[in-house]
């Protein structure tokens, strides 16, 4: 009997270590729920999922880059650009302060597609600068992020809009951001769809394997005949598309858009990815991990506001929790003795 408890204890500890991140998240939820039991409700779950949705999509884009051992600082500004572009095209013709005067209602596929194409182009630009011009990814994407923020500001400032926050979207567009089916928000479903898509792409296709290979050891990949240029172009383009999609949904969800949308999302995304097990040295990363990473950040933010922690204290507490969570999580890798 004594023996068996011993084994059980050990098993529990191992289990705890292997699932550090989940344990931390559950502990966090438990503490918040203890302070304010209402936290354990469907509404809260829905809110958190909804707030996480666009973030997940951005983080998925970022994950591609991190797996391929790149870096991308353009995510946030891409979100902003896509939000403004899609917003400017999704306005109802009846709106009194239109971005484009005298246009008919465009099918909402138009703003979505145009933004996604813009995202694709900028992603390709990133990829080209990194893969062909050999500019370190950090600088390349910082450069594009400045560049597109500039473009976005210029576009947003076009008369007659003159930098007024966009609004007056068509019903269908607003619905995309705020609607739900069977209680599940559309944008959460879209985020879910993206997760499934990325999961399949990474784990079930040759392309996915090649991305991991390039990130894990670029030399090895190159010597095995993998076209590094192609892979890098792909990951940056894919990221661009996902960022743009997130931007569109952010515009739809908030019912507005300004050129400041998305500011800082890139760092949040990188942080979520790393918390979720990606490494900046490349070659690792899972969709599940990134999902938990994003969720942790959103549970903390939402939860702390929920129990009424002041904004200033929130930062203090957030900083501590994030570090603690990862410090616990990394123990599972501590095989070296």
């Amino acid at each position, binding site marked *: 009997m004594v023996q068996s408890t011993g084994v059980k204890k050990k098993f529990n500890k191992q289990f705890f270590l292997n699932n550090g991140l989940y344990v931390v998240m559950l502990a966090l939820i438990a503490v918040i729920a203890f302070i304010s039991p209402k936290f354990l409700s469907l509404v809260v779950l829905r809110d958190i999922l909804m707030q996480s949705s666009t973030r997940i999509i951005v983080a998925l884009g970022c994950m591609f880059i991190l797996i391929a051992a790149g870096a991308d600082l353009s995510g946030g500004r891409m979100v902003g650009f896509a939000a403004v572009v899609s917003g400017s095209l999704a306005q109802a013709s009846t709106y009194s302060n239109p971005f484009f005067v005298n246009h008919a209602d465009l099918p909402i596929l138009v703003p979505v597609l145009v933004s996604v194409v813009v995202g694709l182009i900028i992603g390709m630009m990133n990829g080209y600068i990194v893969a062909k011009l050999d500019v370190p990814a950090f600088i390349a994407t910082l450069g594009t992020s400045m560049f597109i923020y500039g473009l976005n500001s210029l576009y947003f400032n076009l008369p007659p809009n003159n930098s007024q926050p966009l609004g007056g979207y068509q019903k269908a567009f607003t619905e995309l951001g705020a609607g739900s089916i069977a209680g599940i928000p559309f944008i959460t479903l879209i985020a879910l769809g993206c997760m499934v898509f990325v999961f399949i792409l990474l*784990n*079930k*296709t*040759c*392309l*996915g*394997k*090649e991305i*991991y*290979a390039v*990130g*894990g*050891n670029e*030399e*090895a*990949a*190159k*010597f*095995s*005949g*993998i*076209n590094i240029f192609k892979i890098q172009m792909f990951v940056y383009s894919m990221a661009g598309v996902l960022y743009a999609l997130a931007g569109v949904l952010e515009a739809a969800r908030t019912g507005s858009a300004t050129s400041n949308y998305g500011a800082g999302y890139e760092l949040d995304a990188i942080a979520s990815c790393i918390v979720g097990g990606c490494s900046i040295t490349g*070659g*690792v990363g899972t969709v599940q991990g990134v999902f938990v990473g994003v969720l942790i950040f959103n549970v903390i933010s939402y939860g702390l506001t929920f129990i009424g922690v002041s904004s200033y204290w929130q930062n203090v507490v957030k900083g501590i929790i994030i570090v603690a969570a990862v410090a616990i999580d990394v123990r599972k890798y501590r095989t*070296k*003795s």
Partner: protein
Amino acid sequence: MGKSDVVLEMRNIDKEFPGVKALNHVSLQVRKGTVHALMGENGAGKSTLMKCAFGIYHPSAGEIFIDGEKTEFKNTRDAMDQGISMIHQELHPINTRSVMENIWVGRVPHRKIGPIHVVDERKMYKETVELFKGLNLDIDPRKKVGELSVSICQLLEIARAVSYGAKVIIMDEPTSSLTETETEILFAIIKKLKVQGVAIIYISHKMEEILKISDEVTIMRDGSLVGSWIANELTQDLIVTRMVGREMTQRFPQRHNVPGDIMLEVENLTSVNPHSFKGVSFHVKKGEILGVGGLVGAQRTELMEAIFGIRKIDSGSIKINGKQVQIKSASDAIENKIALLTEERRSTGIVPMLSVLENTVLAKQTAHTHKYQTSLRLLVDRKRADDTLQFVDSLSIKTPNIKTQIQYLSGGNQQKVLLGRWLLTEPEILILDEPTRGIDVGAKYEIYTIMEQLASQGKSIIMISSEMTELMGMSDRIIVMCEGYISGMMDGKTATDEKIMHCASSHRN
């Protein structure tokens, strides 16, 4: 053998790097179904030539023919498409991925569903198992490569190169991190490939291997061709003479060292890692060269790293000069005058982007900073350069100058720099983990001479080696390890291949 047999021909290849003319009009003809050995000192240009043949480098001049047809490789894919595969001198494992993904990287078995290439995991697994079975390897295809030892990675690399079904397989020092058992596996594979008509270019610094398996031998010196010969026309001595450019009568120096009092004594050392060394006891005397033999996974490396303070010990004691010591880090070890030349040059040895100078003085500078400092605690560059130059000379390290980044040196020369690093710390106990891995005969002899000299001065030397001849040729005493235990001990003079192999494969009997 007619001209039609030639699958790969390289004609008058030139290759320049900034400040180095690596290849100078080198030509090579490789025939179907033969093993063509490529020999030369460290830095002779062997790897560079092969990288040209595999599309990694583009020669500055010269032509390449495949089956008599002139061709050009834009990249490695081109070379692979034309039937060439290569085992690289430096391993390139993708540590974060599984064994099978490493094998099939770039050409994963898949099904096409529309435009999408869906990975066929089952097929990949099956093909890997089949491949391994055919090669007599026993490795779990699902294991992460990061968890495997170097030797296993080397075997994987071999399996991968074979799996391409290439006409020409380039093997750049495939056995440098293999023990003899695994080398035998490789030779069996090579024999099979020859029968299938595959041509093999084989680079190695292990003399015994060359004459055993090769049909033809091409020798290079300083980036130029010395010549090509049929293997039966050659002897080891002849090859060595042509490689080095002078006569070398002996492979091992005369030994004058006399073992004295016990220097290092290890008692009952057990690792905290249950799969590692257990209850290990041994000693090494002053002026003694202790050889350590064993198969891959015998835990020799872990044991030595533990003695050096890098890995944790569960129980047991280490005594130096009869006094018990606590070694908790490399700096403790260095303070106790222990030096460890590590097994894996790339991961634990060189700092690639730093210069030869910085790499040479690294350990001494950390341990004996005062020797390089002025009264203001500033480093004196001249003293550091002097120390470095001393070894560049005495170990004849081939480098444009001491400011060159070490990553641009040939593998063997990197190894010499690292040996220099440790000799500078003036150790009393020198642990050498596979010290001559990737080192040419001439340089090997120099290293042996240094070992002998140190031992004669009363220093203790522990040498892990998987090369039997070296083990027997240099050791006063040999201990053999197996699965973490010491399974045998014998006198160097009376040791034989059989005795060592017997101990290495079983500790129970």
